């Protein structure tokens, strides 16, 4: 398969997944801002910018981070290369370039999302509209994911599209978990207090994992258990462990198909081993934020390695 075709499939999936992740970050932020505040001295919107990893380009375009500027920048701004709008637009370009490598259902999901996007663009959205917009983005990504899962031939094209989703999803989960690091607790609040508790619960809800949490742990929301669920639990489909289990598997499928192993296979396997050998104690001792930052860097390295090995 042409490297360019593989790259388009990979990035198409990454862009769709990224759009969803950004929607989830905005959703999480919205929920955090609606928690009862101690004194209004909070910075949820700045944390959203930090989590979406677009602080620098944001500062070039806006003075202050508030609900309006941040939602506009992350959702619709053409100046933000990773805005939801640009992700959907780029995804459609990726799809057009490899139109014949997609099934009709996949194309419809992408093209439909792109058409729908125009109904939200360039008009003032109130909170209700905006929450409808976020729901739309999440369901567009689900429709794409589902159509690929259901209709694509299981060969290298499919595996590259899965790799794109998983690399992006691992990155997203790590970042969403990190939201909590960036959100400061109001001064009078203590760790483990009520606000802290609600903040963690909001994070779980934003990745549709609150119910799963109760199923797995059968107790009230605790930071280390939330981290355990999103980092180490292979049953949780967005967890880092689950992402790497699947990354490893699809990379092995590719290696077998092409008859050749490479750096990507080694990196994925190493990370999978690391995730299953690390305890939550290890993670919290070294600092959750530090662990996540390191993970994001290594996940990037895997992305680069896949690009180098297959996509160029």
């Amino acid at each position: 398969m042409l490297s360019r075709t593989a790259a388009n499939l990979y990035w198409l999936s990454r862009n769709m997944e990224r759009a969803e992740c950004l929607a989830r970050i905005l959703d999480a932020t919205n929920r955090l801002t609606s928690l009862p505040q101690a004194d209004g001295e909070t910075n949820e919107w700045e944390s959203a910018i930090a989590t979406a990893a677009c602080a620098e380009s944001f500062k070039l375009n806006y003075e202050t981070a508030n609900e309006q500027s941040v939602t506009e920048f992350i959702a619709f701004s053409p100046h933000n290369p990773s805005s939801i709008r640009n992700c959907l637009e780029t995804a459609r370009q990726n799809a057009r370039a490899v139109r014949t490598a997609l099934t009709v259902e996949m194309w419809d999901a992408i093209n439909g999302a792109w058409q729908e996007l125009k109904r939200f663009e360039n008009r003032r959205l109130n909170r209700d509209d905006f929450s409808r917009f976020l729901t739309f983005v999440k369901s567009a990504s689900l429709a794409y994911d589902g159509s690929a899962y259901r209709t694509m031939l299981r060969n290298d094209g499919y595996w590259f599209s899965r790799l794109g989703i998983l690399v992006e999803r691992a990155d997203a989960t790590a970042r969403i978990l990190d939201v909590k690091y960036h959100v400061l607790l109001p001064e009078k609040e203590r760790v483990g207090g009520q606000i802290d508790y609600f903040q963690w619960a909001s994070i779980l809800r934003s990745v549709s994992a609150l119910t799963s949490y109760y199923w797995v742990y059968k107790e009230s929301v605790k930071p280390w258990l939330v981290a355990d669920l999103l980092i180490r639990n292979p049953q949780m489909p967005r967890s880092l462990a689950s992402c790497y289990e699947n990354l490893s598997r699809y990379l092995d499928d590719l290696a077998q198909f092409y008859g050749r192993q490479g750096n990507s296979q080694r990196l994925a396997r190493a990370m999978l081993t690391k995730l299953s050998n690390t305890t939550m104690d290890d993670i919290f001792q070294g600092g959750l934020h530090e662990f996540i930052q390191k993970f994001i860097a290594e996940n990037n390295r895997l992305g680069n390695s896949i690009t180098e090995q297959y996509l160029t």
Partner: protein
Amino acid sequence: MDAFDEMRAANGQVRPAYLVLSDWLKRVPPDVLDYRRREAETIFRRMGITFAVYGETEATERLIPFDIIPRILTAREWAFLARGLTQRVKALNAYIHDVYTKREILRAGIVPEDLVYQNPVFRPEMNGKPVPHDSYLQIAGIDVVRTGEDQFHVLEDNTRVPSGVSYMLENREIMLRLFPELFARHAVAPVENYTDELLATLKSVAPLSASGDPTVVILTPGIFNSAYFEHSFLADKMGVELVEGRDLFVRSNAVYMRTTEGPKRVDVIYRRVDDDFLDPLVFQPDSVLGVPGLMSAYHAGQVTIANAVGTGVADDKAVYSYMPEIVRFYLGEEPLLANVPTWRCREPEHLKEVLSRLPELVVKEVHGSGGYGMMVGPASTKETIELFRNKLMREPEGFIAQPTLALSTCPTFVESGIAPRHVDLRPYILNGRDRVRVVPGGLTRVALNEGSLVVNSSQGGGTKDTWILDR
């Protein structure tokens, strides 16, 4: 001007080839035809068979109108055409080969030298450079018009990157879906093997360095090209990779494509990119569509480019006027297919005659295409005619003129019902190392506006399925 009606003789009698169809057309209610027409349009849209119109900002993706009434030619008519087309393509290939090597035809004074040397698409880079198997022209689209029972004329030779073959194939596909009952009552020769024949042709001209099963790719300028649909369509049907310039690279004079399994050697490039953009090291330096070093690999005999670089020297309209002589010179045969009589305005005698009869003639730019830069005298206003008179006097060598032909007509489904409309035919001729292949059929283009003679899709033309009856 009475045009030849392909369905009906002058006395109103239906010609044998059209008997079944004519009977069917009489019985089918118009709303059924209309319904099928709309159904065809929906299918075309869903398949994404659109074309882009350059220079139009609005609605850059459009459908070419499709007429659901097929055009029918008999086996006898086709056999004659196929022989004539084969002969013509062989002569064209010999001419291009000669122009870039010995130039015997120039030295013999048959074609004037400046027609070659001053032709902007003449490629001095190809002088004396061998190409695999001396094969230059693998895919030709030769436009044919009909003016009488046995009168076929070549209107134009397209020897660069002729397009439209995907319409020939898709039109048939849609007709099979919409009118199975008509196919059951006609022995229509299939066209769907075109892509197999194309692949066989391309493989046959692979360089000697290629393995037993040469790797063929289609090179496209990319998704913004007006014919991108056709490029991806052909790649799909042939099972070959559709590459862009950036997918290819040249190392040690060999061409490779970048694949997920590492570099893969490429033997034959069916390019849908113009000469100018093929290799930024040799042609347009700012082109990002091409492959740096491609020409050097080509000259080293390590890759076949189809059609060869520089085949444009055979398809301008001034060279066209010499085609009968070109056929005689290389093949020693009389041309089977006639040219349309052509005045070369570069010759003072011809120019004089053209200027005196301008309102009745068709004037064409020597390097024009797509129906642009042309004047159809009888259909033009006084102002347009005067405009062309000035152009002709200023730059006579840029034009040729021809009598206005009464292109034959075929029954066509238009708003007022079924009415005759003028048509032409573009068959696609594949010229391999082993043999010439002509798939029985072609793209029939129809001028949908009443009385119009311009069949180009950019100017109100549509297409029809073309049926060659097997018996």
